[in-house]
């Protein structure tokens, strides 16, 4: 693969007309902004072009009748049973099948940003309400979302809101607002946290709802981030959003989630400037990011290690599978990404931490299971797939799966070996075709997106 390094104007628009918008570009965009992509979606995006594809991703699309029925069944069942495993299955269903996949991906981004866990909240009702809040502002306003979090019941339980009282301010919530939600370490003092905590006193939960407990609210003067006044929680949020560190903090996270593992300072600064210019409105920010020269530069393709969700759901989507969602959720937990139950308040750090000797083995086993077992559901036979797409020659079938699953060139020798396998390996055409998918998924390149 050619590498051209970081573009001179990284956030300037990518000009596909000049450089040639093609299926490879479309595949790159779709794998990063959805959980995998189907061959049909790639063709559709390649035909439609970058702008129209971004329109589809960033504007609300009507969900299918099938989706709406299943979504309702799973959601109702999760609340009826109060079982978090059922809520996990519901969300996985949405991630995989929604006509608005970027909304689901951004919902996960916010879930990871705020990182509450049901291990402490212990309520499907509250986790679901919070998840709906993430979804409602997934590509909306970060300002609104951050403000909403201060009154979110799951968040208040997670960060001990009820323990934050006038005479004994609990710093948990204020600390996380500054350290993990808006500014990042090094951009506030311990004094700022102590004073901000006073502004959130009395922001409690009563009868499963947010309740402003006036008697426990400290309405004396506080000094936070260099300003003095009779601040409440809303004021603290606005003061954090006004800090230069806030858009920088968000920019770094967005770049690491969607573009590159180690963004440099000037790049973070540039994106932070755009975040400020758009006043934390995510749709225009994401549009600029996903149509940037940086996003499509060769240097930034296939450089992110797939998260367990990207790996599992991406595979299902690419291979047209309707998986067993309960088994999928369990495997995700084993691979280190247990949705609704992140391990720490910092969420999943991801990147290099996704892979170690244990999870690499499990990732390999996942490839074996999905192509040879039934525990996670069965994939479509590649012979059938080939027929559907009018592919007859083995070399074309191999090329189809390389494009779909790897979205990059591989060496001529590897390609030839795969073709030989499809022609000559033991067993019938069916098992060989599954074996082909297994081999492609076993290549190190398949772990990257």
């Amino acid at each position, binding site marked *: 693969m050619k590498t051209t390094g970081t573009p001179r104007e990284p956030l300037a628009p990518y000009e596909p007309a000049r450089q040639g918008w093609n299926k490879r570009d479309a595949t790159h965009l779709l794998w990063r902004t959805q959980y995998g992509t189907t061959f049909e979606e790639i063709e559709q995006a390649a035909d439609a072009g970058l702008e129209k594809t971004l329109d589809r991703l960033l504007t609300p699309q009507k969900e299918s009748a*099938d989706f709406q*029925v*299943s979504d309702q*069944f*799973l959601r*109702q*069942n999760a*609340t*009826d*049973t*109060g*079982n978090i495993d*059922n809520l996990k*299955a519901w969300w996985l*269903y949405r991630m995989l099948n929604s006509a608005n996949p970027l909304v689901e991906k951004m919902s996960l981004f916010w879930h990871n940003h705020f990182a509450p866990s049901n291990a402490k909240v*212990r*309520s499907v009702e509250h986790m679901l309400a919070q998840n709906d809040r993430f979804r409602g502002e997934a590509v909306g306003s970060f300002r609104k979302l951050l403000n909403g979090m201060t009154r979110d019941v799951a968040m208040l339980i997670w960060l001990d809101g009820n323990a934050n009282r006038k005479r004994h301010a609990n710093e948990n919530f204020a600390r996380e607002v500054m350290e993990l939600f808006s500014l990042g370490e090094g951009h506030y003092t311990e004094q700022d946290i102590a004073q901000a905590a006073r502004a959130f006193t009395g922001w409690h939960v009563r009868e499963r709802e947010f309740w402003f407990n006036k008697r426990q609210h400290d309405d004396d003067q506080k000094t936070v981030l260099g300003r003095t006044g009779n601040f409440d929680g809303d004021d603290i949020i606005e003061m954090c959003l006004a800090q230069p560190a806030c858009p920088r903090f968000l920019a770094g996270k967005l770049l690491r989630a969607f573009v590159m593992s180690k963004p440099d300072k000037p790049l973070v600064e540039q994106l932070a400037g755009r975040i400020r210019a758009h006043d934390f409105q995510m749709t225009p920010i994401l549009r600029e990011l996903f149509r940037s020269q940086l996003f499509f530069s060769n240097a930034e393709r296939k450089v992110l290690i797939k998260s367990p969700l990207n790996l599992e759901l991406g595979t299902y989507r690419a291979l047209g*599978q*309707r*998986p*067993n*969602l*309960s088994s999928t959720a369990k495997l995700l937990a084993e691979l280190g990404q247990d949705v609704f139950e992140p391990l720490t308040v910092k969420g999943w750090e991801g990147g290099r931490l996704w892979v170690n000797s244990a999870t690499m083995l499990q990732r390999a086993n996942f490839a074996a299971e999905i192509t040879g077992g039934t525990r996670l*559901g069965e994939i479509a036979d590649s012979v059938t797939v080939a027929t559907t797409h009018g592919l007859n020659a083995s070399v074309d079938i191999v090329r189809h799966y390389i494009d779909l699953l790897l979205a990059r060139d591989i060496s001529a020798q590897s390609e030839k070996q795969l073709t030989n396998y499809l022609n000559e390996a033991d067993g019938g055409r069916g098992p060989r075709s599954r074996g082909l998918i297994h081999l492609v998924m076993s290549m190190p390149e398949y772990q990257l997106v």
Partner: protein
Amino acid sequence: MRAKPKEGAELFQLFFQTFSSILNIQAGQQGRQPWILESETYKDTKILFGRYLQKPSGKRLPLVFNFRPDSARVGDQFIISSSLSLCRQLVDELKKPASKKRLEKNLNVQFQLGPFADILEANKDFLQAQRIRKGRNPQQAQQDIALLLKVLRYFQALDLSTRASGDSFQT
């Protein structure tokens, strides 16, 4: 289940209480309401059942409130069921004259499929969600449940019994 009443009754009650306690611990772990054991007399038969300590009000209660352990003894036959209404139906069934015929069997377990089908019918949404989680689409899930109900209603009851005599064992 058929057994000698005097020898089996206490053991059965102990089993039922232990079973209920385990379910209560599980409910606590999952943040659900616990239940307490109560009893009622229905057609001269004492039914032990679990009652939710604080059952929420509302027209559409979570599905778990449809299930709770119940047990009763009718003559030499023990009943364990998942709801009070089902338990009452089974008491009615076992009190019918035909059911009093003494069977020369060591163990006799009867599955009353009709009432079970009624319970499943009332919880079709739950079952359909379960099928969708396993990868079925809504239409397939609906067909799966319809087929299951049809089979249950067709058989009405299943009877599993064992008999040991001399060196032989029959199932």
